[in-house]
Structure formats: C-alpha cells, structure tokens
C-alpha cells in the first residue's frame, strides 16, 4: 500500500531523512517512532505529497507520489500533528468542502458525515465556526474530514494528541476497521504503549535513518517497546 524506497530529504546542509526504506502492506497498522527532529514528520509529509523530496521514490497503491501526486492523494488521508483548519468556516462547511474536493455524492456525504460526526460526538457542534472549537474538537473534525472519502491509506502525525479517551478509542477502532477492509495505517507517535498495543509493525527512526524495523513482536522481543527504543537511543548516542 505504501512503499518508501531510499527516501532522502535535506533542509540546507541538514539531512532530515537519509536513505529511508519502509514497506507497508494492506491490512497493516504501522507505527513510526523516533525522537523529536528524527525525521518522522518530514517522511510523513513526503508520503502525502505535501513536501518534495530529494532522492528516492514513494509509491502509494503502486502509484508514484512524485509522478502521479493527485491519484495518490485520492487514496490517502492525512492528519497533521496540529489541526490548523479553516477557522473562518463552520465545521459542516469544512466537511462539505472536503467532500466537494473528493467529489463525494450528496447521499453518501450526508450518510458519512452523520455517521462519523456521531462517532466523535460532534454532530451538535457542526454549525459552530471552527474558530470556536477547542483543540480536541478541531482534531476530531480533522479526523472526520480525513475519513470522509474512505481512504485506502491513513497517514497520521501524532493523531492521539488532544483527543479525549473516548475519541482516541473511536479512532483506534476506525484504524483497525480500515485495515480489516484492506487499507493500511501509517502513523507517528510518542506514546509507545499505544504503539505497542495497536501496531502490527513498527519502524524506529533516528537522525533520519532507520534504526529498527519489522513486526512488533520481532522488534521488541521480550522487552517492552519503550525499553527497546531507549536502548537504541543509548546505543546510538
């Protein structure tokens, strides 16, 4: 579903991502872990066609992000770490905007908006301007917007930040359903407990390079993911 091959990206002299390769297959929830500034957000943005990369190739459903960005974006849903949305719009208008962009038919959008908004207990707030939303409400609206076109690949940067426990639980359920339906999820997180319980596979990135990668059980062995992560950090310090 998502194939990152020898990805490199520099900001001036600083190499943010260095020859990174990851392969995420349909049905997998893939966790992406690393310290601050390790290159997680750069990788995620490159996968979604938001950021140009210097070298390598990224394929989404077999399509090149570089060559066919629009086709790739139709398959992807992206959720940033900080949900800055169009504050001048009410929530419902934002969702309608997203639905128009993806060309979702009237009946489908009505059903999906109603279902997703109910799941996140946002229906009553949809007429409110986004500027009046709390951080968590914006995050929920961004999730609803992301799921509206029923993506094949969900790419998220720290998705649980700001979500209340119930919304986080709902999102985890949606991630699993998406994968059960043949989709895939690729997300970064600092909450290692969540990653350990939720992910089928995990990649640990350090200074733009892959430090460890594979099925969760193989990467962590008999230890916890936290211990493995800290050991890797110490080893490479």
């Amino acid at each position: 579903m998502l194939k990152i091959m020898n990805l490199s990206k520099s900001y001036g002299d600083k190499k943010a991502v260095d020859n990174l390769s990851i392969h995420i297959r349909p049905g997998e929830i893939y966790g992406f872990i690393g310290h601050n500034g390790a290159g997680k957000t750069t990788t995620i943005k490159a996968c979604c066609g938001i950021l140009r990369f210097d070298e390598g190739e990224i394929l989404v459903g077999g399509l090149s992000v570089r060559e066919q960005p629009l086709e790739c974006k139709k398959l992807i849903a992206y959720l940033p770490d900080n949900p800055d949305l169009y504050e001048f719009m009410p929530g419902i208008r934002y969702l309608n905007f997203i639905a128009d962009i993806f060309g979702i038919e009237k009946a489908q959008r009505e059903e999906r908006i109603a279902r997703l908004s109910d799941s996140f207990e946002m229906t009553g707030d949809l007429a409110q301007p986004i500027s009046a939303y709390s951080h968590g409400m914006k995050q929920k609206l961004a999730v609803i917007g992301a799921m509206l076109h029923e993506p094949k690949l969900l790419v998220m940067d720290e998705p649980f930040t700001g979500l209340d426990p119930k919304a986080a639980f709902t999102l985890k359920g949606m991630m699993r359903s998406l994968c059960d339906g043949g989709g895939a999820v690729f997300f970064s997180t600092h909450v290692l407990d969540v990653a350990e319980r939720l992910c089928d596979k995990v990649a640990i990135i350090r200074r733009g390079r892959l430090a460890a990668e594979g099925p969760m059980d193989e990467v962590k062995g008999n230890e916890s993911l936290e211990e493995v992560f800290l050991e890797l950090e110490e080893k490479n310090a």
Partner: protein
Amino acid sequence: MLEALLKTRLQALFAQLFTFGRAGKKRSAGMKLLIALLVLYVIASLGFSIGAMFDMLYVPYRDAGLRVLYHAMCALAAFMMSFVGSVFLAQSMLYEARDNEMLLSLPIKPGSILLSRTAVLLLFVFVFQQIILLPSAAVWLIHGPVSFTGIFMYLLTSLFLPLPALALSLLGGWLLAIITQRVRHKTLVVTLLSLLFLFAYFAVFTQLPRYLNRLIASGEQIAQAFQKAMFPAWHYGLAVAEGSIASLLLFALTAVLPLLLVLYVISKSYLRILTMKRGAPKAVYSGRPMKAGSMKGALLKKELQRFFSCPAYMLNSGLGLVFILALPVLLLVNRGILDQMMAQFSLAGAAPETFTLLILTMITALNMVSAPSVSLEGKAFWILKSLPVSPKDALLGKVRAHLMICLPPVLLACIATALIQGAALPLALLMILLPALMTLMSGLLGVLLNLRFPKFDWTHEIEPVKQGIGTILTLLASFLLVAGPAALYALVLRGKPGLVVFATLAALFYSAVCGLLYLLLRRWGTKAYQDLTA
C-alpha cells in the same frame, strides 16, 4: 521582560520586510534594493502630492504672519492621518493577535504585553505622521524663513506629536474591542464602522480644494479658532514657528498626559478583555440537506468565505470597489466634480472621457484580493497541499475569487459611468474593457507575487493583507501598468492618436500581459506552489 517583548515585536516587524519563506531566509541584496526603491517611490509620490497641497497654503500664511497657524495645521493633519491609519490596527494588534494566549500563559505582566504592543503601534503612528510632516516641513524649509532654533524645536515637537494620536487610537481600538466582543455579527459591525470612518475621511479629502481656498482666504479667523479650540496644536505651532519653550512644554504635557491616562484606563481592563469569551449564542446544527458541488466550485467558495469573513481583508484589499461604485454616484449627484478633479490634476483641457477612463482603470488597480491569498492559507496550507487538488486549480481558484469579487462592481460602475457620461459606443466599450482587463491582470499578478513572497507565520490576517511585500509590489506594478500608458499618451504622444485608438492599443497590451501572466502562473507558479510549505 518588557525589553525582551519589545525586541521580539521589532524583530517580527523587520523580519516581515527582510526575510521570507518558512526557513526565514534573508532577502538578497537585490531584493533589499528593490524594497528600498519601492519605499522611496512611495515616499516620493506621496510627498509630492501632499507637498503640493501645503505649498498652496504656506506662502499666503507666511506673508500674512500666520506661520504658527501653518505648523498647527500640519500637526493637526498629521494627527488625523495617523489616527485614521492606526485605530483599526490598534484593535487588531492589541486584542486579536494570535500569540496573546501564549504570552498570557508565560509569567509576563499583562501591562508589559500592552506596552510592547503599544510601542510597535507608536512606530506605525510615527511613520503615518511623517507622510504629512515631511512634505509640509520641506515646503517650510524651501520657502523659509528657517532658523536653527526652529528646526530644533520642530524635531523635538515631532517626537511628542505621535503621542496624542497614539492615545486616541488606543482608546478607539479599546472601544472597538469592547463593542465587537459584545455583538453577534462582529464582521458586519467592524466592516460598517470601518466604512463609516473611511467615508468621513474621504468626504473631507474630496472637499480639500474647497477647504484649501477657504483656509487661505480666512486665515485670521481660523487662527483665532485654533487658539481656542485646538490649543495643543496651536502651541505646537508656536513652539516651531516662534521657538517658544513654554509652548513646547505645554504641548509636551498635553501630548504625554492623555496617553498616560489612556494607558492606565486600558491596562485596568486589558487582561479582562483578552480573556473574555462571551461570543454569540451557540449555533445548533440542524442537519439540513447538503449540496454537492464541483472541486473548482469548492475552492472558489472557500476563497470567497475567507474574504467575506475578515473585515481587515475586505477593507484593505477591496477598498477600490467602494471607490469605483462611489464614482458614478458622485458623477450623478455632482456633475461638476469631474471638472474640479481635472483642474486639480492640471488636466483642465483634456476630454472628460480620457480622465474617466484613467480613473476607472486606476481605481480598479487598487483591488488586491488575490495578492495576500497564498499567505492567508497560513498554517492551514497543509489542507490544500494534502488534498487531490492540482497546483493550477488551487492557484486559479484564487484568481477566480478575485474576479468574482471585483468584476461585478467594476463592470457595474463602468457601465453606469459610461451611461452617465453619454460616451459613444466604442469608447463606452473600452471604458468597460480596460478596467475588466486590469482586474484580471491584478488578480494574476497578485497570486504570482504572493507565491514569490509568501508569509505564512502571521499572527493576524492584517499582516499579509496590509504589510505583505507581495501586496505592496502588486499595488505598485498595477499602478505602473495604468500610469505608464497614461503618461505615454499624455506626455509623449500628446493625445495623438485619438483616445479610442490608444485605448484599443492599451487593451491589446493588457490582454498580452494577462496572457503572459497566465502562462507564468501555469508554469513557474505551479512549480513554486509545489515547493511551498507552511
């Protein structure tokens, strides 16, 4: 603490001019030179027009022994100019800055936040005042008499002069903040108040020639009135013209005391206003049937919603629309106004249609709706970038919004003006075509220049809208695209060939420029868009 805050504010202000992009890259030497030339050009053009006005006043006043009145009037004009320019800025800078909450979370006294923002506002007030003070002082220096004491006193009083305007702007901004937090339709209220303010300002401005003649004719009476009703301005004049130290002290006192008083009053409620979230009653979602639309339609609607939800954007970028709609109304109400205006611009002998065509195109060039539109994406730019929207569609959506907002009023005003003037059909068509092409041209140019000079890290919409380098360059380029052909026609060709032939050639030239800009948008623009990140 206050020092650190001041430093941050000033750094942000200068970064606005001398850095660009996400990485805060420094502008090249060439770009700095361009900005400097731009600033010089604006200063020179404003200076000459305002200087010419004061030039009419100075000699008669000097000869009548009314130099004190001249300087007092300069002070009053500078005070008014800076108040008009800074009152809405005061509201947005002090009460609507996006970093207010972040600063309040730090161990910083609200008073320090207030003072640091006031200091930056003072800088703006000072700059606004120089628009009047520099040309009026130049007139005084050219015609004399000038003494060392006079210059010294002038410099000293000019330092105090921004303070009363600052006090009034702070008070105005404070009242606006209180009002807008209590009303439901904040956008509408702010827009109406701003328009009211502008109409009052321009009503005075359009009557200036008449006022000037009256001012010259009745200097003595005005001087007496000034002494009684506007004694701080009178003492400013006395200090500069006669070197009176007592007047200087009195003026300084009348400048400082109101400011201290206003600051005291505002500081008492500053924290409360910043943290007050009354808002409107919660709108409840009723689940009405939805309408499905096209992708291009969605992009257009998004741009329109942004424009109509932000008074600062509407008023600064769409001001030309108010003027252009006012023009046929003015012509209808006062048929002689065109002759008055032509006489004012030393064009008494020219055909009225020539002047109307020039004015219509020039006012159209003031509309800058698309110029800040890329920067206004701000931190939400990720939405457009992550959606399956091609760069071409995203950028053309901004141009379409510009056209959708500007074209209907421009066309309406042009048709009405042509009808009122009774222009012949070919000329009437050109009176519509040239402003329409100018609208398209400024729309394309605005997006292109904003792509070249984006600024996503603003704290209030007013920053990209009012201070963005792309906006300023678009305004200048659009102005040159009108003034250039006009100067060619008037000064080089001296009215030959006829207006219809020349305007047709100008329309062809504008069409070619539009075509070129469109190609540039599709090629360079789409690539630049792909490279952009917020």
